């Protein structure tokens, strides 16, 4: 695809902005910044990837995955404002998920140990883990809020932190996995997933593309479960004080 052809797609963006002005939606500025940001981010990552693929240096691979995890953890932690120490717990959950995932994929020779495979698959794993982690922390706070009474009953009967939080944890884990499970059920029927679409457009055999997609779907489900459970183990204690009382939940759920 030529750069010129790509530029023509900007017409869509401009059309959208015109509609926004015409309909007084007030979205022009956001559309403009969004367009510029995504273009710069994607182009930049393209050049970075090109460079990494050429040099094939492990250190770059580690660096780029660390950045991915850092950004993902920071982004997911925004769903739990005021919860101290949640960022590194999310980062640790995502990192563990990523290591297990790559360990399995590489160990079983499912993918080749080259950046071409490792980086995109890591990106998807980490991105999915980020969504799951964000959903988990958000739901955890809501569950605690709505189950205050139950938690206090358990505490007043001498429950440990883990006993008092068990039900709430279970519910939040379940909740955080719903989107992943739902999309597993409808994949291919409702939407053709991005990776498969991309491979087919780029000329790959559809059956081959489907195989990779199945791999992705299964790994996503596995990694969602791992991220969410690990995060629930690492973070439930944060909801209670040292003296085993419910910590007041800071305002703001987004």
């Amino acid at each position, binding site marked *: 695809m030529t750069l010129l052809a790509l530029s023509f797609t900007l017409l869509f963006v401009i059309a959208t902005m015109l509609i926004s002005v015409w309909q007084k939606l007030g979205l022009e500025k956001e559309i403009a910044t969004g367009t510029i940001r995504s273009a710069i981010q994607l182009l930049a990552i393209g050049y970075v990837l090109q460079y990494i693929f050429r040099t094939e240096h492990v250190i770059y691979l580690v660096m780029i995955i660390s950045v991915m995890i850092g950004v993902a953890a920071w982004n997911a932690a925004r769903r739990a404002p005021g919860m101290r120490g949640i960022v590194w717990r999310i980062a640790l959950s995502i990192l563990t998920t990523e290591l297990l995932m790559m360990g399995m994929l590489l160990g079983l020779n499912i993918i080749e140990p080259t950046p071409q495979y490792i980086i995109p698959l890591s990106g998807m794993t980490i991105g999915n883990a980020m969504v799951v982690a964000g959903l988990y922390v958000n739901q955890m706070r809501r569950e605690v809020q709505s189950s205050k009474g139950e938690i206090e009953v*358990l505490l007043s009967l*001498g*429950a*440990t932190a883990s006993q008092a939080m068990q039900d709430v944890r279970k519910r939040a884990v379940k909740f955080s996995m719903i989107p992943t499970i739902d999309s597993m059920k409808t994949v291919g029927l409702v939407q053709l997933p991005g990776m498969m679409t991309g491979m087919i457009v780029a000329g790959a055999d559809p059956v081959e593309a489907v195989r990779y997609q199945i791999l992705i779907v299964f790994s996503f489900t596995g990694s969602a479960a791992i991220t969410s459970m690990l995060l629930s183990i690492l973070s439930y204690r944060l909801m209670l004080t040292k003296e*085993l*009382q419910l910590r007041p939940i800071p305002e703001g759920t987004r």
Partner: protein
Amino acid sequence: MAAILEIQRLAKHSWNQDNRESPYLFEEVSAVIQQPECISVIGPSGQGKSTLLRTLALLDMPDQGDISYAGISYREKDPRLWRKEICYVAQQAVMLPGSVEDNLGTASRLHGEVYDVQLAEQLLEETLLAGLDRKKNASELSGGEKQRIALIRSLLLRPAVLLLDEVTASLDNISARAVEHMLQQWQAREGTTMIWVTHDLEQAARTSSRTWFMSGGTLLEDQQTIDFFRRPATEAGRQFVRFLASEAAL
């Protein structure tokens, strides 16, 4: 011998600073409980009776002062073990998910002990719940049933000190009397100390040997129940008794 419970100059800051003359919800609350007894806690609402009980169970932290159980300060004790001995029963009964039986068995489940079915049955009977289907989902119970189940759920923990927060508030007279009777028998058998918040002066007179009157941001009177009802030591106490008595007469 160390006292069962010793409260020393306990204070709790008030949240709403602006519309109060004192920065405390209550302060300078001191009392010693030497032997198992039943203490009534009375006073106008909003005085912090519930908060005092919750603090004694460490569900809220004391802001000042100290509480000791059997000679050991709360600061030196694991809050979990503390709550096994000093158990708060809330005014608003909250059922845990599951059946009535699941709720009754909570304490035994938490502490890996055997669930005493016979004792549970006996307590259900004594509180007029003998016919209740224990397989029933606890969330379907009536308010009064919930309150009694919550109370029995705590009794089955067998704490040394029971903190009862208006536990007969949503009961009809007959059930309330049954609960009173059950608790008195329980105390006679188990030697449990009870600190019991109530709005019912007659209930206080029937059940307790000692009365705490909370007013003016502190524990204003700590007297033998007989003495308190015969003649409260403070003007606030006299007014309160008169007020409740006139209400009861209506």
